[in-house]
Every structure is written in C-alpha cells, then in structure tokens.
C-alpha cells in the first residue's frame, strides 16, 4: 500500500515535499496507521513523528490523515482509501516532518486556568460530588489535548491568538461545570470579549474530528448559555 508523507527538515530542505513509501499490508490486516509509520521509519529513519502510548490516550500522534485530523494509533488502515496521505496537523508550525509546535496551543490552554479553584476551607477528606454533579462533567474530562480539534477549526486558523480554540474551551467548560470549582463567575468574565469564545461560528469541525468522540461545540454552546444565564 502506498503512503504519501509530508517531509520537511528546515535545516536541509528549502521547501516541504511529499515522499511516497510502499508498505506491505495484508488485506485482512487490522493494522493502525501508527504501525505503518513505524515500519516506514525502520526503512527510512530520517522520518520524524511523535507517538507514545499507541492506544489513543497520550494524544501525541495527532496528524492529518487523508484530509482529516486523527490519531495515527487509533486509525485503522482498513478504514482508509489508499493512497494514504499523511500531513502534519493543519495550521501549526512544523518543526520537522510530522512534528509540530504546540506552544500557542498550550498558551491558549493556559488562558482558561485549567485547574480547580476553590476558596472554601479545605475539607478533612475529599470534596464530595453527588452522582448528578459528577455527570455534568462527563465528556469534558476526557480530553487528551491532542490538538486535532483546534488545528482543524477555521476560527482558530483566522484568529489563532485571540480565539482560544475548541480544546481550550472544552477545558474551560469542564471547570465551569465542576461543582467543586468556585471561580465560575471569574472564569466566565474572562471569556466575555468578542474573540475568546464568540469567534466560534459553530462550524463543528472540532466535533467531527475529535478522536475521543467529545463534543467541543456543545461545550462552547454551554459556555454561552452560562454567560447568558449570568446576564453579564
């Protein structure tokens, strides 16, 4: 099977280029794209990509495979139409080949203060949540920060610095919804400007590509609803 892979080494190449590789894959194979990449790397060790857990938990191997951002380790080759075209995550600065720079992505993540804030007295044991309260953060605590969504969001392409992006906003909503967090008002106030949240045009690319099947669009709608309820 043919793989066409984006190659770019800023120290050696003037311009990025696509390089073709042939990999033998039995027709009944359940191999994932990451395994094929590792096979290619055995033959051509100059190919650079990130990967770690191999099972869709660490979020390292987000890349654009046949036009959609996905995790190489959870994308079955049998689900793809050959030739398989692999490019780095869209609209992120390329460090080398499929390795991209996450600096801005993590800055946007930092902006939503992704940690629990509680000014009440620390209890002797843990802060208890009822099952109903806990259910409110279902689908919000599972983000692995692979950047597949933010890198595929047109609003993030046009305003990467001002719009937080779907990943960051999913995290923002995760703490807004958490019954143990007492900084809800401050969190909402921090997002009031016309860009941070409201540059979302509900295109929903984020929800389409999320490899964990999360719904950042719904989280963004939730933030807007909370703001409207607060009447800010």
């Amino acid at each position, binding site marked *: 099977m043919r793989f066409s892979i984006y190659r770019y080494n800023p120290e050696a190449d003037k311009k990025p280029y696509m390089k073709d590789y042939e990999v033998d894959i039995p027709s009944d194979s359940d191999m994932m794209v990451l395994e094929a990449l590792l096979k290619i790397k055995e033959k051509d060790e100059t190919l650079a990509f990130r990967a770690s857990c191999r099972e869709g938990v660490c979020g390292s191997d987000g890349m654009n495979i046949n036009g959609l951002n996905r995790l190489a380790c959870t994308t079955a080759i049998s689900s793809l139409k050959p030739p398989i075209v692999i490019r780095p995550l869209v609209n992120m600065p390329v460090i080398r080949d499929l390795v991209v720079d996450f600096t801005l992505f993590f*800055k*946007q993540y930092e*902006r939503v203060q992704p940690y629990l804030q509680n000014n009440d007295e620390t209890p002797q044991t843990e802060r208890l949540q009822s099952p109903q309260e806990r259910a409110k953060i279902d689908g919000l605590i599972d983000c692995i920060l692979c950047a597949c969504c933010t890198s595929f969001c047109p*609003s993030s392409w*046009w*305003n990467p*610095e*001002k719009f937080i992006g779907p990943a960051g906003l999913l995290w923002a909503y995760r703490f807004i919804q958490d019954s143990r967090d007492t900084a809800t008002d401050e969190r909402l106030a921090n*997002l*009031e*400007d*016309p*860009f*941070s*949240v*409201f*540059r979302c*045009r509900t295109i929903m690319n984020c929800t389409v590509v999320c490899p964990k099947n999360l719904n950042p669009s719904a989280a963004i709608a939730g933030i*807007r609803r909370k*703001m*409207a309820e607060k009447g*800010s």
Partner: protein
Amino acid sequence: MVNKPTSDMSLTANGLRDWLIQRFSAIILAIYFLVIVIFLLIHSPINFITLKNLFAHLWMQVFSIITLLCLIFHAWVGIWTVITDYIKPVFLRIFIQLLIILSLFIYFFWGIEVLWRLI
C-alpha cells in the same frame, strides 16, 4: 503574549451582547421577511397601490423601522466578524469597517425617508 483582545469596532465590544443582538435581530428579520412574502403571495400580482396601502399602516411603518434597525445591528456584528477574520492590516480594516458603518447609517436614514414619504 495573549493579551486581552482588542475589539475596537465591534458593535458593543462584548462578545455575549454582540452575539445575542445578532441572534435576536435575526428572529425579527425572519419574521419581517415572512410577513412580506406572505403578503406578496396573498396579493399576487402585486401593484403599487396594494404595496402603498400596506406601508400606510402605522404598525407596518414601526415594524419596518424596527426591522431596519435590526438589519443594521445584525450586519454590523456579522460584517465586523468577517472583516476581522480576513483583513489583517489595521488601517485597511478600520477604513473598510468605517465605510460599511457609514453605508449602514445611510441605509437607515434613507429607509426612514422612504417610509416618511409614503405617509
């Protein structure tokens, strides 16, 4: 690096307010155009007298002016969004935005003048 973003020429400089105004104005616009379309269908073929009679009603004049205002707010928010997406040089962006705001005002007063003359 990621400072509080500048929202220089958005309608209200507040994301939620802009967003709500755009959505509420959309509802008014939809109702208005529905009324017009239904009127045109009922009175087809339309002529000048029927149309003039429709706009002679006070409620229609008030409704038209409210709709015109909604259209202006709706367009202000929407076009500001598109312009800040695509036009990055600050002076060019502000210039185009000013032109659009100016034309929105002209449309508004022009619209009032048209309605006024019908009375």
